[in-house]
């Protein structure tokens, strides 16, 4: 091979090898996180926060697990620290607002909740926040089976009714809430009230027929998530059938069904009766043999 050909071959090899060498490649790019903060207050008691963390992978959003976030009230400074949380497999983390921030909470009518992520070897640092105005919701159940929710906002030092807020009126069930009638949401009027007729008469309640009504404001831009519950005796009485003390196939052995015991023990006695007879038969044969000797 001519020297120039050798040089050419060498260079070509180097060109092909270089892209494969990690030392020349760029550092892996870190992913970006999207942080959403939601505010919740249930039965006008202690407010809570839920943070959801997502990232985009191949054009699709994916929940990110194991992200450690710091939550702050109004500003991300040490004195306004709410909690440190870590996201679960659904990319979510929740916390209550601690009582240590009570004075800070009472100072203003609007608050911003800030969630910060400091970044790690996979994701860039990120931040998310939500601002809400203090609000509350009340629920009332009339004797004519009308459910009324009233939404108030704190203005200065008084609670003022709010108009035009969408409210869900529903009955709490095991897995999800069932609207009280076919209408999915009700809007508050100038008195802050939203009413609907309860049309779920045959719904099973507890032993006394109690069901739990719920009024909810969901993902409202100004007020976040508000909900309130009220127990009413509008359901059908439901007596839980407990078969624990009954004779069943899944009960303890002293409560086996009688028919099963009869069948099983009859078969066992019949078969083992035959076996015992056949063992005695051996002794009979033995006796015949001994008689023959004597």
């Amino acid at each position, binding site marked *: 091979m001519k020297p120039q050909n050798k040089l050419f071959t060498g260079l070509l090899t180097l060109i092909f090898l270089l892209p494969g060498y990690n030392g020349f490649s760029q550092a892996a790019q870190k992913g970006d996180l999207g942080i959403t903060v939601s505010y919740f207050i249930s039965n006008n008691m202690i407010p809570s926060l839920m943070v959801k963390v997502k990232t985009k992978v191949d054009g699709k959003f994916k929940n990110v697990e194991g992200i450690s976030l710091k939550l702050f009230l109004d500003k991300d400074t040490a004195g306004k620290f709410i909690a440190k949380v870590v996201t679960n497999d659904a990319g979510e983390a929740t916390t209550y607002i601690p009582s240590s921030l009570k004075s800070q909470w009472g100072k203003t009518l609007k608050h911003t909740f800030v969630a910060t992520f400091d970044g790690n070897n996979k994701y860039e640092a990120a931040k998310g926040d939500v601002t809400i105005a203090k609000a509350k919701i009340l629920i009332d159940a009339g004797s004519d089976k009308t459910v009324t929710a009233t939404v108030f906002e704190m203005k200065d030092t008084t609670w003022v009714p709010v108009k035009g807020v969408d409210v869900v009126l529903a009955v709490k069930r095991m897995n999800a809430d069932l609207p009280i009638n076919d209408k999915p949401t009700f809007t508050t009027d100038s008195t802050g009230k939203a009413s609907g007729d309860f049309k779920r008469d045959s719904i099973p309640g507890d032993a006394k027929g109690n069901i739990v009504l719920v009024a909810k404001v969901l993902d409202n831009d100004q007020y976040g998530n508000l909900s309130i519950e009220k127990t009413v005796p509008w359901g059908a009485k439901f007596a839980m059938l407990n078969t624990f003390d009954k004779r069943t196939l899944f009960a303890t052995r002293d409560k*086996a069904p009688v028919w099963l015991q009869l069948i099983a023990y009859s078969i066992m006695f019949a078969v083992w009766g035959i076996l015992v007879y056949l063992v005695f038969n051996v002794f009979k044969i033995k006796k015949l043999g001994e008689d023959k000797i004597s």
Partner: protein
Amino acid sequence: MENLVIKKEITNGQLPADAISLANEKIISDLLPQKFGKAGKVWVGVLSAICLIGLYAYYRQLRYGLIVTSMRDYVSWGIYISNFVFFVAISLVGSLITAVFRLAGVKWGSPLTRIAEIIAVAAIIFASLIIIVDMGSPERFYNLFIYGRIQSPIIWDVIVITTYFFISILLLYYPLLPDIQILLRFKEGTGKRLYRFYSFIGSFWKGTAEQFELSEKAINILCIAIIPVAFTIHTVTSWLFATTYRPGWDSTNFGAYFIAGAFLVGAGAVVVAMFVFRKAYHLEKYITEDHFEKMGRILVLLSLLYLYFNMNEFLTPFFKMKESEASYLNGLFSGDFAPLFWFAILTGMIVPTLILLFKKGRKPLPVFVAGVMVVVGAWFKRYLIVTPTLLHPFLPMHDVPASYRHYFPSWEEWAITLGSLAGAMLIITILARIFPIIPIQETITEQHETAE
């Protein structure tokens, strides 16, 4: 004339030593249990060594707990329960060869009855033992009696296995009585201890007509009783799975599917044992090529029957491919378990059928090869019934460690399993050393009946 006299004496149970004809002496000398030769000693040594390794592995399991196995929360029934189902299946052969043949008037099967019964007893002993091994702490077996619920198929299985064990012992014992009388006549050839053992279990047998009558009656009763018990033992074993809501087990076909498989593997084991004993003890005159020809036909029938049940068991779920069962089925047909699954189907059913369909394939050696394939295929089939299902629960657990999602038996599990298989073979070997592998009295009687 001499033969007729002897026959009369035999059938009357009067078999004085001086009246034994040359023909009878030949039969007796051919069929008397023989001491182990060099090969026999090596065979026993190898089996004992495997058993000892199994025992050491079991000691480790007792010492450190079931953590030494690869069984976890997903696969809680692993190779032990597969092996248990295999033993239960193989034990069913006692009822097939002894009872079904006898009641159906199949005379040619009588030289095979003792082999079948010995296999049945050995298999049922190890089926019981392997369950105790699977429990981890053996004292838990006691809890079955203290807390066992009559509603549970597990308790039904315990009851039925115990019943089947006793029936099998009786069915081995009763036809042995006339042979023990013959064995006692050959004190010189028998060791002292063995002679004492024979005396203990059968010296009272004098071969009187009354004794024969009682014995025949008992054998008939046992033959009738063992069939429903045998069907029950395997049906109940199948219910251990079928009453559990799991992919692959949730089937109404399971009872019949298990029984068909059990008859097949049992018949396979008998032809293997027939071939080995025939070679080892030179029994060509008693276990003839005709026996292989007929057992070959039976094996084909049973293979096809089991294949039919397998198609029933897999084709309909495959056709529907329900989402909840898809990963289990795909795992079997084309996934991780596919090589094992197709190996079990081909080796356990299709190839033996192809061999045995032809007359040349029903000669002793090909029948033996087919029998080995059936038995090996059957063992893996039991593994496939148990393990893949457990790896694919309808409701998977959250955040389980990766080790839960895969199962490959640990060395301790392999050692215990192989030890139990060796143990069963050791029992068969020892019983064949102690007792005539072919019933002597029955053979003499049949020879005279044929001569007549």
